[in-house]
């Protein structure tokens, strides 16, 4: 017998990253700029806090919303970093990574056919998560010549009577884009005017460079009551495997999200929650050290790409650069596959992040400078060989 998979699941394409990952897996000895997670191990004091909690035998379920202690830490952290106050016991939910929080927020908000706007190129899970929640995903293209900033004018054009949610992710995976505060204000005003809910995934908010502050849309006037602020410890504190994210939102929405979360997940793992308390309360200096390192690598890699003739703007956030490869005449997929086969360097084709990512590749600098150096050298050789090939 063949098992009939639900239509809306069957129709979801596999992640372009996953496809590519399988090719990389089949080869040995590859230098990878394809990794979307910090190369640092979780700072020791955070790991040590988790070990301590295990020693104490704290191994049970927690409240569905998460440990009250952790929610208090989240509330204080969000207040000091984002400038928005949330009631720890009713407006905060601890999730299994931001990914789960996105899923349950969408499921809690969408009726079939409701439209969700998101900017593209973007993280690979947004469109599928919307579709799985029976919503209609509407991408708004951002442009490389505009440093992938989301323009209020483009948002306005995409709004229809069925639009319910605007999803934001700044700093952006895969482009590293950040938002100028004045443009963010215009978008906030649009959301108020059209009564949209904003889901803002600010997982990279600590990783901003050039001493730029991270503006959160939740802090703008009239926004807190219509915003789901999504954040977590994965990127800032190098804790991807711990799977701790959180959502801050108005009480009635947190309550609705909790109803899904309690039946699907029950609660995030307690040892990870204990570690997250340590990270949020005392992780600042570890985070700053890692950020400093990322910033130096960013400068290095941006210079490297521009020097070899691949135009690369200098992003102010996350740990990705998104150089343009259209000059090589290859699609992002062909470029990445050939680079992998010929030079054993893995980058992610920009097309994996939506059609507007085409013509670019995503390179993560969350990898050691020694590796980045070799990668840049090899990509330089690859581009030179492509040019020579054309000339011949």
């Amino acid at each position, binding site marked *: 017998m063949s098992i009939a998979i639900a239509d809306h699941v069957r129709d979801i394409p596999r992640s372009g990253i996953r496809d590519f990952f399988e090719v990389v897996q089949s080869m040995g000895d590859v230098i990878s700029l394809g*990794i979307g*997670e910090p190369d640092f191990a979780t700072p020791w004091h955070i790991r040590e806090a988790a070990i301590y909690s295990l020693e104490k035998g704290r191994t049970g379920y927690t409240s569905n919303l998460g440990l009250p202690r952790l929610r208090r830490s989240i509330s204080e952290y969000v207040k000091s970093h984002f400038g928005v106050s949330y009631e720890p016991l009713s407006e905060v939910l601890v999730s299994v990574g931001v990914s789960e929080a996105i899923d349950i927020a969408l499921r809690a908000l969408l009726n079939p056919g409701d439209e969700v706007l998101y900017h593209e190129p973007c993280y690979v899970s947004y469109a599928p998560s919307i579709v799985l929640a029976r919503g209609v995903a509407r991408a708004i293209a951002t442009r490389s010549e505009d440093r992938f900033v989301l323009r209020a004018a483009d948002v306005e054009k995409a709004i229809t009577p069925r639009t319910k949610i605007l999803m934001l992710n700044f700093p952006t995976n895969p482009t590293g884009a950040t938002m100028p505060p004045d443009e963010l204000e215009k978008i906030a005003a649009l959301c108020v005017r059209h009564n949209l809910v904003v889901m803002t995934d600010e997982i990279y908010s600590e990783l901003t460079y050039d001493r730029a502050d991270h503006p959160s849309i939740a802090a703008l006037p009239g926004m807190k009551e219509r915003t789901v602020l999504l954040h977590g410890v994965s990127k800032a504190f190098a804790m991807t495997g711990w799977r701790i994210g959180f959502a801050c939102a108005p009480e009635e929405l947190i309550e609705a999200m909790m109803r899904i979360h309690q039946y699907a997940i029950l609660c995030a793992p307690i040892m990870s929650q204990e570690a997250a308390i340590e990270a949020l309360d005392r992780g600042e200096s570890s985070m700053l050290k890692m950020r400093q390192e990322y910033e130096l690598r960013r*400068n*290095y890699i941006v210079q490297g790409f521009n020097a070899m003739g691949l135009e690369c703007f200098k992003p102010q956030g996350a740990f990705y650069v998104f150089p343009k490869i259209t000059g090589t005449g290859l699609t992002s997929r062909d470029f990445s596959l050939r680079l992998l086969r010929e030079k054993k360097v893995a980058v*992610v084709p920009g097309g994996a992040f939506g059609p507007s990512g085409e013509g670019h590749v995503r390179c993560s600098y969350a990898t050691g400078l020694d590796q980045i150096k070799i990668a840049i050298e090899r990509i330089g050789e690859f581009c030179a060989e492509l040019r020579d090939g054309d000339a011949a």
Partner: protein
Amino acid sequence: MPGSMEALIDLLQKNALTPREDIARMLDLTVAQVEAEIARLEREGVILGYQTIINREKWDTDVVTAVIEVKVTPEREGGFDRIASRIAKFEEVQTCYLMSGGYDLLIVVEAKNLRAIAGFVAEKLSTIEAVQATATHFRLKTYKENGAFHHFEQAAERLAVSP
């Protein structure tokens, strides 16, 4: 520039051999600017020197290291400084700190064997008039030195491509 000076010193402290071209790229400066800045730091005595961190497990040079706590009587005019510099000038002394707490100076001494260190303490250190008492501890094993681990953690395996 001013912010990048901190970053420059950081980089040199982590690895003084980092190629100047790499430093320039990381700090968004030219190589000439980096070289000029390093020269200035050396000239002004901000950078005193460059050293190598040796893994003693792999390169055992038959050197004995002792940490010695020293109680001294400060002098009416020189305080601790003069007596500290007198002690620090012995070539056996690698490091010398003024400490708060139960004793005054903490010195790290290297010599070729135990007897040599005993000789240094008995004949040189203790005979200085201002020195009241000493307590000598020998190093058995090094786990971490100047921020570098001597037993390295195995790097965990990472996925080659992830979202």
